């Protein structure tokens, strides 16, 4: 039974909130139960931002993830330090190795290292690093279909940003390839 509890974390501007929203949106399009809960508060510019996402076959109780995340995606070092311990044993930790030199310290979870920023730069748009991470996440967990995420992204973008769809789609493909 599907019951993913996902943390997306990084610094403000990396698009971690959007990653979480796209997973939620895609889950909703597939008829799954979803919730998205952001951290909010007096964060510094460049400080950490994170959101908790639930995707489940069952109605969702608490939208809060305490120390039972099935997956954590960390895009910067403070996020790794903050959330590594919140992953359940056997869970997955996706690390943006472009910005995080440190390795995961736990051995009871599986860590994946994705050079998200480098891949994004290769694609000519450093802002799609989040989509690289998202592509890796979808490849590893199959929580939702890539096509559902693309539908969600299209809706989020609206008409004016539709020209950005190809680079985002490519970023997801490259992210998936990085963990194959």
């Amino acid at each position, binding site marked *: 039974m599907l019951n993913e509890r996902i943390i997306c974390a990084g610094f403000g501007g990396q698009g971690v909130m959007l990653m979480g*929203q796209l997973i*939620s*949106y895609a889950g*909703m399009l597939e008829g799954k*139960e*979803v*919730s*998205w*809960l*952001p951290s*909010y*508060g*007096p964060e510094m510019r460049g400080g950490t931002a994170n959101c908790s996402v639930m995707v489940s076959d069952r109605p*969702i*109780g*608490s*939208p*809060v993830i*305490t120390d039972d995340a099935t997956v954590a995606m960390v895009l910067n070092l403070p996020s790794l330090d903050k959330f590594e311990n919140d992953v359940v044993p056997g869970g997955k930790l996706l690390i943006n190795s472009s910005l995080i030199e440190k390795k995961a310290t736990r051995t009871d979870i599986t860590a994946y290292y994705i050079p998200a920023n480098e891949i994004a730069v290769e694609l000519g748009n450093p802002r799609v690093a989040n989509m690289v991470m998202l592509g890796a996440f979808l490849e590893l967990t199959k929580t939702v279909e890539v096509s559902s995420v693309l539908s969600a992204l299209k809706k989020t973008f609206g008409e004016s940003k539709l020209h950005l769809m190809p680079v985002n789609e490519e970023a997801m493909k490259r992210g998936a390839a990085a963990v194959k």
Partner: protein
Amino acid sequence: MAKVLMKGNEAIGAAAIKAGCKYFFGYPITPQNELPEYMSKEMPKVGGVFLQAESEVAAINMVYGAAGCGARVMTSSSSPGIALKQEGITYIAGAELPCVIVNIVRGGPGLGGIQPAQSDYNQVTRGGGNGDYKLLVYAPANLQEMVDLMQEAFDAADYYRNPVMMVGDGMIGQMMEPIEFREMPSRFELPAKDWATTGTKGARKPNVINSLFLAPQQLEDHNIRLQAKYDAMKANEARFEAYNMENAEVVIVAYGTTSRIVRNAIIDLKEQGINVGLIRPITLWPFPDKAFDLVPETCKSLLSVEMSMGQMVDDIKIASNGRWPVHFYGRSGGMIPTPEGVMNKVKEMVGGAK
């Protein structure tokens, strides 16, 4: 209609507009800012008015004025801002005018913090303003329920000519969930607002909206009439949900987002052989006293779980009238109770895991 993914604060705004709200007066405060932001964008599209007042006090008095004209009107704020609005709220209640007040509660006392809390339970159920008045207070647990209740909130406000409060917390304001905007049939037959001050055009005597009654007998009569209205609300408006009550050893009372955390704990406790029920008040005032008649004979004690230091415990004691001991587990200040915390408290109460 298809489901949409929306932030709680925005969903409240959308539901209010759908329920016919035409005027919104507010002043910014975290964690409800997305609501006035949404209203500022959407109200003009439906021919309504959004106005950012110079303060919370100004905003609630604008609500007083618009309500007096018979308009569907709403304001929103969070705990310290709601504290500032109390004078206006008791005036509106005293003048018997309908309005909806959204309160996205944050930690207190004082300026407190900006994270989720339920520490304004006493303020919303007892009234922070002066005099014998009551608000009808809804406390939905998820966005769908919040949206579904919004039509009812406006209708009940008009029907009883009384302010209605919609209570959430920072979590419900900030989170996103799929929502369906459904047609909710009204439970109320709403009479014409023949009391509104809309101009006499020389055709009738002026309507007077007022909460000042200097003659003691007149004021007592006014209070007796108000009380009859509150009695009718007590008889007809108390709402709750009961969950997993069969053979429960402990029954937890929790509302709003806290009830969701409790529900997770109940499922996990069941797997460990401990049967726990839940009474979830949907209205905080009137408090759903009748829910406690459903507590099974197997139950040995009640547990209040709150994001406060135990403000709801008194109401549970009154409603259960000494039938069971009442325990408390809570977090405050923006700390959120965990299912584990709730489970440990229950285990302590029943004497360890089985």
